[in-house]
């Protein structure tokens, strides 16, 4: 332990944050946006009275929730080029960059978890409000968009953000595709310089500070926006 070398961190931290952390944060932001949108749609499908829609949504969510994220990452890494080829009608699998492959993977995977949160949020809104919306002559999308979803989002915001912190931690798993996210960058430096202890400890500390800090912020937000009933 006596030979803990701070020099390697000093030399590499700019690279770690500029290359790695930018990737991790961009991926998190895009996957969160996509995941919440797709997740909300899934939740609405699942609560729909149209049987095939609700069955599809339930099946999708249960499938995603019963297999490991790593397997999903591998699935999409190989599947996305084929799906892309199928969509544009190309005879050979198209090339999708590692970054977009990751964005699609995490969007699709986290959507399953976001959809469960949004489902709970939508179900917590009294049914009477939906009927009141219909009685006012609003259609389904207007009722959802102007009455139910804004309240559901507000109530579920802390849980959605907590899930996003988990998503941020999960993005470290793109390491298995040899992508330079924050952990990937740390691992590259660690292996190049033979400084595994320093780099992995540093990565752990950085992740801890970010995630712990964000979770404190979420707690404060929760206290602030909670509706006193």
């Amino acid at each position, binding site marked *: 332990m006596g030979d803990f070398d701070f020099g390697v961190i000093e030399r590499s931290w700019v690279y770690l944050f500029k290359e790695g952390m930018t990737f991790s944060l961009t991926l998190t932001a895009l996957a969160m946006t996509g995941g919440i949108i797709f997740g909300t749609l899934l939740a609405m499908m699942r609560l729909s009275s149209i049987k095939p829609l609700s069955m599809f949504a339930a099946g999708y969510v249960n499938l995603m929730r019963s297999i490991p994220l790593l397997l999903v990452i591998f699935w999409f890494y*190989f599947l996305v080029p084929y799906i892309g080829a199928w969509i544009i009608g190309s005879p050979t699998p198209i090339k999708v960059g590692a970054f977009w492959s990751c964005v699609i993977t995490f969007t699709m995977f986290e959507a399953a978890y976001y959809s469960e949160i949004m489902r709970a949020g939508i179900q917590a809104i009294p049914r009477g409000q939906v009927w009141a919306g219909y009685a006012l002559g609003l259609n389904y999308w207007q009722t959802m968009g102007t009455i139910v979803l804004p309240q559901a989002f507000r109530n579920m915001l802390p849980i959605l953000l907590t899930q996003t912190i988990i998503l941020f931690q999960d993005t470290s798993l793109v*390491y298995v595709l040899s992508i330079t996210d924050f952990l990937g960058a740390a691992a590259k430096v660690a292996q190049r310089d033979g400084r595994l202890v320093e780099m992995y400890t540093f990565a752990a500390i950085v992740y801890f500070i970010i995630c712990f800090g964000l979770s404190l912020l979420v707690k404060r937000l929760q206290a602030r926006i909670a509706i006193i009933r």
Partner: protein
Amino acid sequence: MQYNWNWKIFWEMSPDGSGTYLSTLFVGLQWTLATALSAWIIALVIGSLLGVIRTSPVKWAVRLGDAYVELFRNIPLLVQMFLWYFVLPELMPKALGTAIKQMPPPWGSFVPAVLCLGFFTAARVAEQVKAGIQTLPRGQTMAGTAMGLTLPQTYRFILLPVAFRIILPPLTSEFMNIIKNSSVALTIGLLELTARARAMQEYSFQVFEAFTAATLIYIIVNIIVVFGMRWVERKVAVPGFIGPQVAGGGH
């Protein structure tokens, strides 16, 4: 789409010489289950202890428990896996560290994986146990004390038997999480189910067959766990007592 499906691939011999591809996948499943079960024992024991001390009146113990949970919840599992595998042996006394590093192949990654998953999941179990105890009316602790029970006795005979029944459903999902999370151990070289599906894909180029098989196996394991735990829930249920669901996000 140009993809040559070949479902017969599972009956072909895998190049590592241990049998058919199908049998290598099932060996992988055994490692997944062995890892998950061993880690689950650690998680349950430490998680329960932490959950209990976090509801105890001892201030410093509560703080210690909270610190543990925050520490293990806010570092990604993969990073924790690296800490156990790469960093811990270096921090040990030299002889012990070398001994750890020289463990023969499956055990060299199995032991760190089990420890990592166990201590990681313990933090999540601790949250559930604490929530379970806190859903009980405060009067129960007081009643216990009034009857002359010591604090440990109150926990043992009054609080915990009900608390554990309440948190069975969230514990079930934590158990399924530990099975899924054991796939992260492939990064430190444990050849569990996902790793073997990946290896099969690399040797045979039959990507989608390999991943379909692994996906189906995970789903079947999930279904078995869900039904098994429902059976346990029915077995231990106290008539007329239905516990509320304790919310727990994440994977």
